[in-house]
């Protein structure tokens, strides 16, 4: 390909349709965006070019509604190696190793085709992480489904869980944790947020920026088919009653091929052949080639007829917009083609040199020698639409007086029933039915398993074989009902809870990946939710030194005008130097002091108690005092490091009594506790209130902890002791653990087994 050829006007494809306002609209471009395109191109685009603009300027790829807000998040810390903008975030975990991680949504596809949608969500996030040179060591996922009573929910749960398991299990990456909630606001738009954490040598990290004019551009992995065409555009609009017709836009995953791709890429990465590498995710070949060239300040020529194709008769438009999975684009050093080819052929993967880098800063696509697209790269990036959409903040609802919320009743039977009801409600019931379908033990490094602690804990492997003493704590958190009630508080709380969950294992929280799931940003109140959540998150991330290093935005989660609850899912990673010092939340022996750390006011606004027992979703969510969070969390972590803590659990959904019950069930040991005298708080508010910055600790050296807390000025109070096979709250609750367990573990399997 010569420079002269690049100047030729592109040829139109046979039977290429006229570009009409309708065609433009079908490509998701607003009329003024199309005007912008015409100005950049200086002529009418070809269909291929229109398709490229459509994908690159989609909400999904361009972040046009969210960009101005995302900039407000703190992204730096001394341990951050790479913040947002690459395939995943990278942090230094010491000893020459880095953790590489990101969370990403696959919401729209998972609703349309739950198995493949969820599976390819996992596949996509895995690729984002191993593209950067990391071997993935853990997956987690955050799922939100509609009302269990909604006719589609059971089918969606079943398909999504099977899809996540099907992909992760075959890849051999343990799925070690996550969260699953249900709420009617997700009836028409479920959320599937998947996170992968990988580990690499900190001096062997691979980036997407292309370099070296003339260097070959190589395509590896699966062949390109017609699946997923316009997936990015689909994910950038609301759903309506015709959405099921969008099934062909959902990609089909092949985890076996991705496993081969992982091994082949890591093998190639161990050589010196790679200049840059980028996976083909949303908008496939378009966005990968574009981003590599743009980041490197270069141009690129792609000979599309050389792309390995799954079927005959594919045209350039389809090739550029297909979202076929398990594909990578690599810029190689000159002369390394044969070395790379041998590796990919060993792994039985396609390998093709499909183009080269140029200094023209243009993307030129050819098809059997004819130029079919010729786009200047910098303006497509710099002139991309960015919207400061109008926004209205959600007012803080009035604080609910706990005294005006009824108690469960006056008798012990009423109290027992209230605890059973909470422990078996969809949000709190055991999710074992889900995580038993995920291989959470492969690699042999899982130290804290699902339901055994606030965060999953995995040992860090050493490359190429062996293990270290270091552990990574991984969690995902968000309380959407808090965010709905007051986005700033909810944003703050989501970050604080993630930080607490890492802390409760003894690990030091290091960094965050955020997955912002919201409704239609063109509505000021939705944009206000987004803005509010970001403000709260930014404040919390700054106060807790917990920078955001990667993330993903999913907007337009609405069906027929009904938006989801605003859900800024926070994925987080922390490190513990010696994994033998870490603790879970299991209460495994009697005679331990049960100590409550943190201040309790009895906050019932937006609590699960209020919703599940009284059917009310109201009031202000619990306030988050970040200085107190930090003080209490650092105290707890120091106690764990000092070896004084046998088990620890943060207090969140359902409050104190739910957290304590979870500790008992996880470890199979009962407790006897009482409400301390003189709290002046109604018992139901004390035990079910959701005040923040609190932890429960079980300890064989309770006096030492209480004394240390007194000296540190941290509120701490002894509630009782572990022992026996029942949960007893003096004068209020007395239940055999077996009875609670039956309710807690029984709900989800029974629900899933119900035949409609």
């Amino acid at each position, binding site marked *: 390909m010569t420079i002269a050829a690049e100047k030729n006007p592109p040829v139109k494809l046979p039977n290429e349709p006229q570009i009409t306002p309708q065609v433009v609209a079908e490509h998701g471009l607003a009329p003024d965006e199309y005007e912008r395109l015409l100005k950049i191109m200086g002529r009418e685009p070809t269909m291929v070019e229109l398709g490229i603009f459509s994908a690159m300027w989609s909400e999904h790829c361009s972040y046009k509604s969210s960009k101005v807000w995302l900039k407000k998040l703190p992204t730096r810390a001394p341990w951050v190696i790479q913040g947002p903008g690459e395939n995943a975030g990278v942090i230094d975990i010491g000893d020459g190793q880095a953790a590489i991680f990101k969370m990403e949504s696959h919401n729209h596809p998972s609703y349309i085709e739950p198995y493949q949608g969820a599976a390819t969500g996992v596949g996509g996030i895995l690729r984002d992480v191993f593209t950067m040179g990391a071997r993935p060591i853990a997956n987690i996922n955050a799922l939100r489904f509609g009302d269990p009573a909604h006719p589609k929910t059971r089918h969606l749960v079943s398909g999504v869980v099977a899809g996540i398991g099907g992909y992760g299990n075959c890849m051999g990456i343990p799925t070690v944790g996550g969260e699953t909630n249900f709420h009617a606001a997700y009836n028409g738009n479920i959320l599937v947020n998947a996170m992968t954490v990988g580990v690499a040598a900190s001096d062997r990290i691979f980036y997407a920026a292309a370099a070296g004019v003339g260097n070959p551009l190589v395509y590896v992995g699966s062949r390109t088919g017609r699946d997923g065409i316009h997936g990015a555009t689909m994910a950038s609009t609301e759903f309506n009653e015709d959405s099921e017709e969008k099934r062909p836009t959902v990609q089909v995953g092949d985890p076996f091929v991705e496993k081969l791709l992982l091994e082949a890429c890591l093998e190639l990465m161990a050589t010196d052949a790679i200049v840059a590498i980028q996976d083909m995710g949303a908008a496939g070949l378009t966005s990968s080639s574009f981003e590599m060239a743009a980041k490197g300040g270069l141009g690129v020529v792609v000979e599309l007829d050389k792309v390995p194709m799954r079927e005959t008769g594919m045209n350039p438009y389809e090739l550029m917009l297909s979202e076929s999975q398990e594909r990578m684009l690599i810029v190689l050093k000159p002369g390394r083609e044969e070395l790379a080819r041998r590796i990919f052929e060993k792994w039985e993967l396609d390998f093709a040199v499909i183009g080269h880098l140029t200094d023209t800063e243009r993307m030129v696509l050819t098809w059997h020698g004819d130029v079919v697209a010729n786009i200047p790269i910098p303006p497509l990036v710099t002139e991309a639409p960015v919207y400061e959409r109008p926004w209205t903040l959600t007012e803080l609802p009035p604080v609910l007086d706990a005294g005006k919320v009824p108690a469960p009743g006056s008798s012990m039977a009423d109290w027992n029933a209230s605890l059973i009801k909470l422990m078996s409600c969809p949000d709190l019931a055991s999710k074992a039915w889900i995580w038993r379908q995920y291989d959470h*033990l492969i690699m042999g490094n899982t130290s804290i398993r699902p339901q055994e602690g606030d965060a999953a804990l995995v040992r860090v492997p050493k490359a190429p074989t062996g293990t270290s003493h270091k552990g990574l704590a991984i969690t995902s958190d968000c309380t959407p009902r808090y965010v709905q009630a007051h986005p700033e508080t909810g944003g703050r709380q989501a970050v604080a809870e993630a930080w607490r969950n890492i802390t409760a294992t003894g690990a030091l929280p290091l960094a965050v990946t955020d997955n912002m799931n919201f409704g239609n940003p063109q509505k000021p109140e939705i944009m206000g939710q987004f803005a509010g959540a970001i403000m709260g998150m930014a404040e919390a991330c700054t106060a807790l030194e917990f920078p955001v290093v990667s993330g993903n935005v999913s907007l337009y989660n609405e069906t027929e005008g009904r938006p989801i609850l605003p859900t800024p899912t926070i994925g987080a990673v922390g490190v513990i130097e010696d994994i033998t010092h870490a603790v879970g939340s299991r209460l495994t022996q009697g005679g331990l002091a049960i100590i409550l750390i943190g201040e309790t006011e009895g906050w019932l606004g937006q609590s699960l108690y209020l919703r599940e027992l009284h059917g009310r979703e109201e009031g202000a969510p619990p306030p988050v005092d970040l200085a107190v969070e930090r003080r209490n969390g650092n105290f707890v972590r120091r106690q764990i490091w000092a070896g004084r803590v046998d088990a620890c659990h943060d207090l969140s959904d359902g409050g104190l009594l739910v957290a304590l019950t979870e500790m008992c069930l996880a470890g199979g040991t009962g407790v006897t506790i009482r409400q301390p005298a003189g709290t002046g708080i109604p018992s139901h508010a004390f035990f079910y209130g959701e005040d923040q910055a609190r932890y429960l600790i079980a300890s064989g050296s309770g006096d030492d902890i209480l004394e240390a807390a007194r000296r540190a000025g941290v509120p701490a109070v002894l509630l009782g002791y572990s022992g026996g096979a029942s949960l007893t709250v003096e004068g209020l609750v007395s239940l055999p653990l077996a009875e609670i367990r039956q309710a807690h573990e029984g709900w989800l399997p029974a629900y899933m087994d119900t035949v409609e």
Partner: protein
Amino acid sequence: MKAAVLVFPGSNREGDVAQAIELVTGRRPQMVWHGDGDFEKTDLIVLPGGFSYGDYLRCGAMAAQSPVMAEVKKRAAQGVPVLAICNGFQIAAEAGLVPGVLMRNENLKFVCGDVHLKIETSQSLFTNRYQAGQVIKVPVAHAEGNYFADADTLKRLEDRGQVAFRYCAPDGTVDGPLGQEANPNGSIRNIAGVFNETKTVMGLMPHPENAVEPLFGGCDGKALFEGLVEALS
């Protein structure tokens, strides 16, 4: 003990078993790529877990036809011990190295978690460090571990002591509702692992290699590898 771990496209627990062997022997086993028909002489061949060839045709069916399996069959016939775990068990069954077949789990779902196993015999290379009747806790992780064999085969297996492990309740109960509850996949007679006639090949669905360290699933699987070292060194 010199061990070779075979690696097929889609194997994914080869690292776990290599790690367990290294922990016990102090020596990294040889990793043998499936395309290599020949490999160094070894004291033990391991067929690891995973999804060989994506398990797309029928689990283990494609790998059983791989060039390296011809060599494995030859060596197994000469008496070289073979440890076949999970997908390895499926491959070994497809290759005819052990009796029986592995079908989809009874509930049609992948299952991962700890199970209890009753050791049926200590009279083998693989189980000599255990006591007959002993109960151990190790994890499973599979979608197709539902062991089945016809009545004649089962009778032969039982008569000759070729059943290695059965799923059981924590107290060792194999029969009745407790035994049924402990069976994660619907395997006939709760069979979790079997030997060939000479007890030189063992196939099992559970993962002893994921139970060799106290903080990572406990140590109940370690004795299997220690027993092998003792028998084969």
